[in-house]
């Protein structure tokens, strides 16, 4: 079996770029989204991150503001 390259492009930010972006914005101007499981979030997360586990994202995306820059991890 060969996989189709069905993945569409997504922009990435590395650690330094992410950190810069967070410090350049007020906390209410930017969304930091954690898509891991609640237990993983509880274990450790980026300060200010919102938790929406991947399985819930397609139903709960409306809770987020599509106009704000959004960092996903």
């Amino acid at each position, binding site marked *: *079996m*060969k*996989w*189709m*390259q*069905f*993945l*569409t*492009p*997504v*922009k*990435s*930010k*590395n*650690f*330094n770029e*992410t950190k810069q*972006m967070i410090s350049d914005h007020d906390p209410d101007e930017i969304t930091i*989204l*954690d*898509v*891991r*499981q*609640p*237990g*993983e979030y509880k274990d*450790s*997360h*980026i300060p200010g991150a919102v938790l929406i*586990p*991947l*399985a819930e*994202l*397609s139903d709960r*995306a409306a809770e*987020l503001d*599509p*106009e*704000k*820059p*959004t*960092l*996903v*991890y």
Partner: protein
Amino acid sequence: MGGRSRVAAQMLAGKGFKQVYNVSGGIKAWKSKTAVGPQTSGMDLFQGPETAKEFLVIAYSLEQGLQEFYLEMAGKARNDAVKDLFHKLADIEVKHKDQVFERYQGMVDPEISRERFESMVTVSALEGGLTTKQYLDQFDPDLSVETEVVSMAMSIEAQALDLYQRVAGQVTDPDALNVLQQIAKEEQQHLERLGKLMDTL
């Protein structure tokens, strides 16, 4: 982390989020303060299916890939709960393959045999595809760590869900829409089950 954030970023981009970024290396990079983990290079060739025919061929190869992934991982898993769930999920992907094939007969070619359809899937995938091994290498999960394997499975399921939801938004035929929504719903249930499994590991 098994590519979950990358797929999540892709889902949001498809829902109209204008500036969405995948934090490469995820929380691991944050903890170790260095960029680690898979890069996204070479993954941007696919433009999205243009027609029902193209879509169904992709969907079929995706379901087949999921089935193979689950069977391969079930063989390697040491945890009985992981093994058991992966076998069950593989069985459901077989059902999805049947449904996708029936849709193809219904929408594109009522006369086509299963064999001929499957050969088309193979040819189409070979043109720009990755082997399962190459695909895994792109994400580079540590397959000896069960959370990484489950995370990987969640990424692929979310990818499938995203594909079905995007296409469902463009389909007008009520029967086709019904099937797409049903499959999308089942992939979402898989995601939930995998999430629950992740919580136990």
